[in-house]
């Protein structure tokens, strides 16, 4: 049953994270905590003309949250706000789908490996931690990637 959770792709991202480490310059930053387990993450975004030209992060966390941050970096770097919002929405929908949502590889790339996480309610928060911090960091950079905004733009 653990195979669904600890996919090879997830363990790879965990052991070899992409884009990890906080970098300058940045236009928005957010620090999020998972109160139940103590995991923390800081996400920074740098943006110019509505695109995320850099996304950097650092934190303490489990394989799921760390791999999720690495995948986020891969998926959202150099994307427009509207694209990012769409991907963010798809990832959140996947995580909150209790295992009933079929992920679209075209949208989510390596993120589809997280489909199994949705079956572990206690771990969904881990996977979402970097995404929630990213959304806040983007907002502080003046870019709205919340789903209402994306609906308007889409």
């Amino acid at each position, binding site marked *: 049953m653990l195979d669904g959770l600890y996919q090879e792709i997830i363990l790879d991202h965990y052991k070899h994270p992409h884009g990890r480490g906080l970098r300058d310059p940045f236009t928005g930053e957010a620090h999020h*905590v998972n*109160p*139940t*387990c103590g995991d923390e993450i800081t996400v920074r975004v740098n943006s110019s003309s509505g695109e995320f030209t850099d996304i950097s992060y650092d934190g303490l966390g489990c394989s799921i949250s760390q791999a999720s941050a690495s995948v986020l970096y891969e998926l959202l770097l150099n994307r427009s706000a509207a694209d990012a919002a769409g991907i963010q929405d798809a990832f959140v929908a996947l995580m909150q789908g209790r295992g009933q949502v079929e992920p679209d590889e075209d949208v989510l790339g390596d993120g589809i490996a997280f489909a199994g996480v949705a079956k*572990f*309610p*206690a*771990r969904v928060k881990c996977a979402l931690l970097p995404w929630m911090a990213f959304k806040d960091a983007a907002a502080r950079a003046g870019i709205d990637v919340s789903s209402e905004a994306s609906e308007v733009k889409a």
Partner: protein
Amino acid sequence: MTFDVARVRADFPILTREVNGHPLVYLDSANTSQKPVQVLDVMRVHNERHNGNVSRSVHTLGTEATSAYEDARAKIAGFVGAATPDEIVFTKNSTEAINLVAHSLGQHLALKPGDEVVISEMEHHSNIVPWQLLCERTGATLRWFGVTDDGRLAPDESLINERTKIVSVVHMSNVLGTINDVTGIVARAHEVGALVMLDCSQSVPHLPVDVQALGADFIAFTGHKMLGPTGIGVLWGRYSLLAEMPPFLAGGSMIETVTMGGTTYAAPPARFEAGTPPIAEAIGLGAAVDYLTALGMEAVHQHEQDITAYALKVLTDVPGVRLFGPATPEGRGGTLSFGVDGVHPHDVGQILDALGVEVRVGHHCAKPTCARFGVPAMTRASFYLYTTTDEIDALARGLDQVKKVFG
């Protein structure tokens, strides 16, 4: 669909019991209700198969317990029409829920001398003393609605005014049975910028209650009066208000992060649920809500209206019995308090108990209500979904016996 009271009674094991050689006639549900086997079974299965602490573990037992606990929250949210389950805070009883608001909202509003808190003369002590203490702490003034001779809130135009910050009144009186139409009070309070709490300890168990329709900002109710276990109560509050309020009880599970130097707090409802909550009790209350929902609260209420109409008629016919509260079933629930001429309620209750008829006697945790009617104590018969007209007849026979002993 007619309400099948015999089928309902079969779900309550205690109703087969005898008391002092007579079949139990339980007429004290306003004090605490009995529990159907469906509630007891759910709790037993939880404790025997799924017991773990909530919100703290990734393991299977903890995850199962957390899901069951949160499912109960969602059920209760649905039962009272809350906007989201996050508006439901589990407490240990109504009393804690009211104290929570008195402390946390009192602090949030920074109450001070000149501010006013409004309650009424028909409140349970649990909706009086927390506000007296809040006023002592802050210098605010406590004011109250009086009660009319027929047991209704006495209108008072100027009582709620621009100095009023909080209004907290009972939705259904546990002594008089009065169901207060709170529309006017809520509207007036909101007009002057005051917040409204309703003590729904007696209404949520007995009638359909919808927080959106009530329009109040907070309501409190308690599990043991609505077929649930002891040890569990509920505060419903508007999320936007809860989100602004500081914590009350502090400790595990209500924090975001803690250092020795300072602490930040979790969002509601967790912010107000410090420590290990009454887990099995919340789950039991969820099962009680399922039970009530399956019967339908309209049907439950109608049954009690029928019983109340019958009881009002029967008791009015017993010479020497004086009823307190509304004399007809309109705008009242199935809680009837009365006096028997020349006999102290303690003695009334004792003789009824000897006949298996269980009523409450005393001040019913509402001394000011008793004082309003010039008596130190009353005898109270209170009904629920399992009450039958036969039981009302047994009460009437018991009262004849009372008068014989003290005649």
